[in-house]
């Protein structure tokens, strides 16, 4: 009887210990399972967190540049650039046109300046302020008796001018608008310098016309050579040089269009 009870007790203890063992095994397994759960989930979450940040940064970098833009946005950007480029092109065209206009104006001004210079040169030449070179005639007058008067030379100069002479010099003196020919006890003076018994008068102009005008029957040559001893020859020259006149200051007269100022 006691033996049977002992056996029963032993088996109960055995069962109990087995159950405890099993429970503890299950608990360990449960803990192990939970640990694996946590570890795998934790690893996955570390990876997810890392990738999230990387993606976040990559996206914000991409939107800052052109690479990450969508096709529509890129199309807009291209359109904007095209418009800007068109604006710039038209601006460049406008500027080129202004430049061309300015160059043309400059050329026009240069031409105007050139023309003005030429006019000024002509005026200076006609006024006697420039020495002049050109075809013309040399009138040689010999008056050994000194019978000619200033008036005769004035007439000669007048005749030359009438015949189209552009520049006249008596001896070495250029005859200009202010020149005066005067009689003096020493002879005739042109602008103060005396001329000798033989004098050369150079006149630039059409030599044929001048020659013809001087040689006219009853003309100046006939008149002058009528005086005793006076001879006069007219020789055409292809290139004569007439010296410039001395510039005399213009003091008292005032140009009319400046008078009102």
């Amino acid at each position, binding site marked *: 009887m006691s033996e049977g009870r002992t056996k029963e007790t032993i088996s109960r203890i055995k069962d109990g210990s087995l159950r405890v063992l099993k429970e503890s095994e299950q608990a360990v397994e449960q803990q192990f*399972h939970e640990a*694996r*759960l*946590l*570890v*795998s*989930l*934790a*690893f*996955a*979450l*570390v*990876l*997810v*967190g*890392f*990738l*999230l*940040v*990387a*993606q*976040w*940064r*990559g*996206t914000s*970098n*991409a939107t800052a*540049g052109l*690479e*990450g833009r969508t096709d529509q946005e890129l199309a807009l950007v291209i359109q904007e650039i095209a418009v800007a480029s068109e604006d710039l092109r038209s601006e460049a065209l406008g500027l080129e046109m202004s430049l061309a206009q300015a160059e043309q104006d400059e050329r026009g001004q240069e031409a105007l300046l050139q023309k003005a210079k030429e006019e000024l040169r002509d005026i200076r030449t006609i006024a006697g302020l420039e020495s002049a070179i050109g075809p013309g005639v040399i009138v040689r007058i010999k008056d050994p008796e000194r019978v000619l008067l200033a008036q005769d030379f004035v007439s000669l100069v007048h005749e030359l001018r009438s015949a189209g002479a552009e520049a006249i010099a008596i001896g070495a003196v250029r005859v200009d608008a202010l020149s005066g020919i005067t009689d003096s006890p020493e002879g005739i003076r042109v602008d103060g310098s005396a001329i000798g018994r033989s004098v050369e008068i150079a006149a630039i102009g059409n030599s044929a016309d001048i020659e013809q005008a001087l040689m006219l029957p009853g003309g100046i040559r006939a008149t002058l050579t009528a005086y005793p001893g006076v001879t006069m020859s007219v020789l055409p020259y292809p290139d004569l040089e007439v010296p410039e006149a001395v510039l005399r200051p213009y003091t008292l007269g005032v140009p009319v269009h400046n008078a009102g100022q």
Partner: protein
Amino acid sequence: MFVLVLALAVGVLAGLLLRIGIPVPLLTYLGVAVLAALDSCLGGVRAALERTFSDRVFVFGFITNTLMAAFIVFVGERIGVRELYLAAVVAFGVRLFNNLGIVRRLMFERREWE
């Protein structure tokens, strides 16, 4: 739960510190892959709360989901349907919200028990 939040924080911190630049053409791939990974994680949490979690299933699912998501984007680009990635986005998005809802409900229920 604290461990999981800590793990996510460690990942974010690592991302911030390492400053890895993702090439622009890979951004779509990685975006969808991240969505898939996030979905897998929420699925894992949900399974843990439902006490049906298996680490093998989780790891396998995590890797396959991520790679498949990227693969769908790749296939879409190759066959000229770039918008195919939207399908993956929608699918994972729906699953994400679904899992999120279940996780939330389970957590509330558990708290009511305790």
